[in-house]
């Protein structure tokens, strides 16, 4: 059934594309100017300002996707795998091009979100409520005028919150949104934007989320003749979540420059639903998180040649994990993290087409915990990035060199007594080169390539988790080679408003990969070692077509496809049945992709999205017991916008996982079946 549907769908998509292609020139319908402009904004804003453009979701397109969180939206990018433990409160982390979640840098309004404890940012905790744009960059954002930290990850996601926009003489915008639906979801949010004068605006927003997180899941197995061996349906429990978010920002313009400052506060309590295993019917672990940060940025063009940018941040994160279940080890741990960050970026224009930039960053991290015999680690990081960008006619090139100096200070504590103090230093240089070439002036066709070498530091958990960390760990390196092209065609008066096609082939290697290995006897005895090695060969393809079907009726289709061969080269002697050598690494499908279609007719907006993740294995030991079935979900949403006097009202309804497919992204963490959401938005 599903298979047939997919084929039909494919045929429809193919027919649309094929037929329209021939007809395109014969249907010279005038484009609605507004619609056209919006497309151009998304497509071709500064068509080749960036040496390597990002994958971006923004504005209405982002709004139309059926997404709870930022992680849900990122699934539509090519080259990305989301590790999703299911439900509203489940952990969702991102893996770009199979390099591992720790190699991804996540930037919130220009400054990186840090987690020195485990290096992973749970993007499930970031709501889409106040978000304007999400961009994904492979390598790094190919701009040289940025803090040194922006050069420091193998891949980056930039999350941009909404900037206040005012029409006419209106100085205040209010927005009230209410979302409700499956999983007992109650999710109200409010936002107020105010303009003090033309050079000073601010916004305040708050959101509350409550969900019982309960949903049905189903596991079953069949005999080889197709009859059912066992079939069990149960309710996922202890997945409740309660979260409050408050955010405020102030934006200012100065002569030849701008500045902004913001704060972010998030407070949540959630149940940890745990893995579904035989004969365990209840989980009662709970987690509390409190995250606060405040950050600011100031930027000014001092003269024709020189531009400066300053950034700063303070963050404090609290996490409390409790297991009251007496059938398991009683745990009650608390962790506090602090981060202070300052950065200065200085760009100098040598020639009109030749810029250099020097950025210097300093960062301090501290982790405190109630764990016994804890190391209380401090990390001082100094980053210096020297970057240059040069344009020769249709050839553009950027090169950067990042110098990282890290000083870790920690203690050896045993039974409350401090036995020793340690201080470790590390210095590293890592380069990156990005290139872009437009072979023919007439066509928007560009060839691009990059090379980048970068590392990720072992996290505080890797190094110092009591009895488990290994203080001698080295950094884990990622090398990336990428070659690709992109092509775009904008038509001012055709059936097609625009077409865009990108393709990239890449080869990545991960060396000194930090992985957990057994230490003593008993399964909770692990330690960390630098023994892993992975080679990744991949292809990312994206295509986009915007069509003007009839007056006021526009269709936009996005396709993305990823092929990845991510092989485990850790142990050359582990071959044959049950061997891991050259096996596909855990949870990386060979094939994955997405289709997003959006149709707008006047104030009606319909969005369809499809995600496909092919077969995978839960281990690089690619045997049948570790085999994971492909999964694919179809989501549909519709929204209608209308006005009552001065209030703009938007009503939206979503159906997710229409065909009610029961699937796991991570083994024994079932995902929700069909679910619904209703959204009501007031803007005045």
């Amino acid at each position, binding site marked *: 059934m*599903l298979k047939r549907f*997919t084929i039909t769908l*494919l045929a429809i998509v*193919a027919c649309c594309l*094929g037929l329209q*292609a021939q007809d395109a020139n014969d249907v010279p319908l005038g484009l609605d100017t507004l619609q056209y402009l919006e497309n151009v904004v998304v497509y071709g804003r500064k068509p080749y300002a960036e040496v390597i453009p990002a994958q971006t979701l923004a504005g209405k397109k982002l709004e139309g996707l059926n997404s709870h969180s930022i992680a849900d939206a990122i699934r539509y990018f090519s080259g990305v795998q989301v590790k999703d433990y299911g439900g509203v409160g489940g952990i969702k982390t991102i893996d770009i091009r199979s390099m591992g979640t720790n190699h991804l840098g996540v930037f919130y309004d220009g400054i990186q979100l840090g987690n020195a404890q485990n290096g992973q940012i749970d993007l499930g905790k970031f709501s889409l409520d106040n978000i304007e744009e999400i961009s994904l960059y492979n390598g790094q954002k190919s701009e040289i005028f940025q803090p040194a930290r922006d050069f420091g990850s193998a891949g980056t996601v930039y999350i941009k919150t909404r900037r206040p926009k005012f029409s006419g003489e209106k100085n205040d915008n209010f927005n009230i949104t209410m979302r409700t639906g499956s999983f007992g979801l109650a999710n109200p949010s409010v936002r107020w934007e105010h303009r003090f004068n033309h050079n000073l605006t601010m916004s305040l927003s708050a959101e509350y989320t409550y969900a019982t997180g309960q949903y049905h899941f189903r*596991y*079953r*197995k*069949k005999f*080889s003749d*197709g009859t059912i*061996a*066992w079939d069990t349906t149960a309710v996922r429990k202890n997945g409740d979540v309660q979260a409050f978010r408050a955010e405020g920002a102030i934006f200012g313009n100065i002569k030849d420059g701008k500045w902004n400052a913001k704060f972010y506060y998030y407070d949540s309590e959630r149940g940890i639903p745990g*893995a579904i*295993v*035989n*004969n*365990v019917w209840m989980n009662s672990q709970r987690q509390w998180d409190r995250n606060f940060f405040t950050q600011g940025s100031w930027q000014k063009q001092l003269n024709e040649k020189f531009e400066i940018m300053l950034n700063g941040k303070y963050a404090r994160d609290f996490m409390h994990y409790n297991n009251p279940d*007496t059938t*398991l*080890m*009683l745990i*009650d741990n608390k962790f506090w993290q602090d981060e202070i960050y300052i950065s200065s970026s200085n760009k100098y224009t040598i020639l009109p087409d030749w810029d250099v930039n020097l950025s210097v960053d300093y960062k301090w991290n501290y982790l405190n915990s109630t764990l*016994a*015999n804890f190391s209380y680690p401090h990390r001082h990081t100094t980053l210096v990035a020297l970057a240059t960008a040069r344009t020769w006619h249709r050839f553009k090139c950027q090169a950067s060199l990042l110098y990282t100096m890290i000083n870790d200070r920690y203690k050896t504590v*045993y*039974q*409350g007594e401090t036995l020793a103090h340690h201080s470790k230093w590390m210095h590293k240089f890592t380069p990156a080169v990005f290139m872009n070439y437009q072979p023919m002036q007439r066509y928007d066709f560009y060839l691009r390539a990059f090379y980048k070498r970068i590392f990720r530091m072992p996290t505080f958990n890797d190094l110092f988790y*009591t*009895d488990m960390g*290994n*203080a001698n760990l080295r950094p884990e390196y990622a090398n990336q080679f990428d070659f690709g092209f992109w092509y775009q065609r904008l038509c001012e008066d055709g059936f097609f408003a625009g*077409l865009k096609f990108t393709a990239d082939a890449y080869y990545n290697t991960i060396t000194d990969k930090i992985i*957990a*290995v*057994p*230490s*003593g*006897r*008993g399964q*909770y005895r692990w330690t960390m070692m630098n023994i892993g090695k992975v080679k990744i060969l991949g292809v990312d*393809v994206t*295509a986009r077509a915007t069509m003007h079907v009839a007056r006021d009726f526009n269709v936009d289709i996005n*396709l993305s*496809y990823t092929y990845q061969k991510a092989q485990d080269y850790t142990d050359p*002697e582990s071959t044959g*049945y*049950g061997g891991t050598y050259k096996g596909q690494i855990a949870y990386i499908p060979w*094939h*994955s*992709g997405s*289709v997003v279609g959006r149709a707008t007719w006047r104030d009606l907006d319909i969005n369809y999205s499809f995600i*496909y993740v092919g077969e995978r294995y839960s281990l690089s*030991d690619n045997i049948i*017991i570790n085999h994971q079935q*492909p*999964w694919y979900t179809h989501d549909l949403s519709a929204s209608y916008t209308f006005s009552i006097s001065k209030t703009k009202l938007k009503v939206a309804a979503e159906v997710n996982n229409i065909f009610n497919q029961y*699937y796991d992204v991570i083994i*024994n963490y079932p995902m929700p079946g069909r679910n619904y959401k209703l959204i009501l938005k007031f803007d005045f």
Partner: protein
Amino acid sequence: MKNYFYYIILILFSIALLDSCREDDVIYFPETVPITQPEYSSIEGLYVLNEGCMGWNQSTLDYYDYTTGQYTINIYAYSNPTQPMELGDVGNDIGIYGSKMYMVINCSNKIEVVDKKTVKRVGQIDIPNCRFIKFHKGYAYVTSYVGPVVLEGMGSDEDVYQLGAVFKVDTTTLEVVGKCVVGRQPDELDIVDGKIYVANSGGYSQGAKIGYENTVSVIDIESFKEIERIPIAINLLGCKSDKRGILWISSRGDYNGTPSKIYAYDTQKRRLIKTFDLRVGNMCINGDSLYVISNEWSNISQGYTPGTYAIINTKTLEIVNEQFITDGTEARIRKPYGIIVNPFTKDIYITDATNYLDSGKVICYGDDGKKKWEVVAGQIPAHFVFLGENINEQ
């Protein structure tokens, strides 16, 4: 030009979508691998319980058939195809008593009881966080980490910990008939002269003020009451008696300054008679020999200590062989985990748990210490029991 792009898109998506659609999961058909020549003795077979990594629900049962020389993986799921979620999460011990086989499934909080020959399910005994099992006169005794929770001290000195227990199970009705509180996180137990000896670990308190346990609890079987605590060493794990009533007890150490060790306790003289400064992960007794295996991580040297493959003579109390593997193949064993010795042929079976995730191995060594064969097993192969007439009563 345009058409060209559409075709590329079309082809790519066709590959992605049509190549692999979702299928139903089917019951695993057990894979049988011929590994060696048949052997004929009163031992018919050897069951291997794979623990499966915590949370993976991948504990599986394998069977080595001596009469055919074949090894079969994952026989439980096939013998009990209608059992939802298969065997369970983390198999920690296995034993045969009478006609039934008992598998202690630690994180599924149960003992799975099956027919010892057909592996067909007979029933289950719910015991939370159950660890090890031993049998005596119609009853099974099972250690469990779950006993009363104790709160000590006040305010910042407050310490919460949980005692463990030994559960008594009637092997005919499969009902729990008694419970005796012992020390914290009790692991292996053995029965000598009407008394149960239980190795208490205190493993959950490794960092807490209260620290590890350091005792063996003694339970009088008749009254089913704890009558004594014998201090031995910290963080005990193994507890096996030899035919002379000497208990061979292993301590895990603290993974830092204190390494693992073996202690010999004489139950008759009621005293510790010898300490062996020998790294131990697992051990097994056969005749007058105690086989010891280990490779231990040391936080101090930041590496594995050289592997132990030693034999202690339980009569003379001397280490008689410091390296019973003689062909150098121990270098390929990444994590020696389980061990058992065939009482007739003296063949030694060792499991390699690799990295606790990928498929493990069962490796057979002859009594000359040379490798005979190896076979791929499940995730963390660990616990053995022989199938045969009277073999488990010896």
